[in-house]
């Protein structure tokens, strides 16, 4: 299974997001440290979920980092995060 699909499943299970997009940006980091042939190293997560309401930016990132801890310890080298509550 592609890393993006695994992350989509985990984030969906953890936050029941109203909106979720995961973009594999690995191709934009070719030649950069951390890039691997075949990609799947650099991702951008855009997520909208009620779970983030009232949480600070750091708290939101920590929630997502925790849900994706296995991926971040594995092959995922960089994770850009945009996390909002609905209506923000």
């Amino acid at each position, binding site marked *: 299974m592609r890393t993006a699909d695994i992350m989509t499943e985990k984030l969906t299970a953890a936050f029941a997001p109203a909106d979720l997009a995961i973009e594999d940006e690995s191709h934009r*980091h070719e030649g950069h440290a951390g890039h691997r042939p075949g990609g799947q190293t650099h991702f951008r997560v855009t997520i909208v979920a009620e779970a983030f309401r009232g949480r600070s*930016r*750091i708290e939101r*990132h*920590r929630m997502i*980092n925790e849900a994706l801890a296995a991926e971040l310890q594995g092959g995922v080298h960089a994770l*850009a995060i945009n996390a909002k509550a609905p209506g923000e």
Partner: protein
Amino acid sequence: MAIEQFIDNEVKSNDVVLFMKGTPQVPMCGFSGQIVQILDYLGVSYKGLNVLDSDELRNGIKTYSNWPTIPQLYVKGEFVGGCDIVREMFQAGELQNLLKEKGLPVKEAAQG
């Protein structure tokens, strides 16, 4: 533990510390480079620590803050965030307010 003490001392004895890949002069990662640009734009003086110099530092800072990625910005001993958070705060003016609240002068954008 030695590396924790080193990190703790750095973030507490310097007003602004950036753990980054590369140096402020030569960032080796686009995300680190973005924070360098923001701090330079604001005219904030800061200490850059290159995690590529030391695996111990690279892993130690992730444990210290319980934050899995680099760069990491600290102001007056407090973890502010990584690239996305720092950029969002800068765009909203919150980073400038935080620095001012902590008594650190920032260069305001030229008027007109």
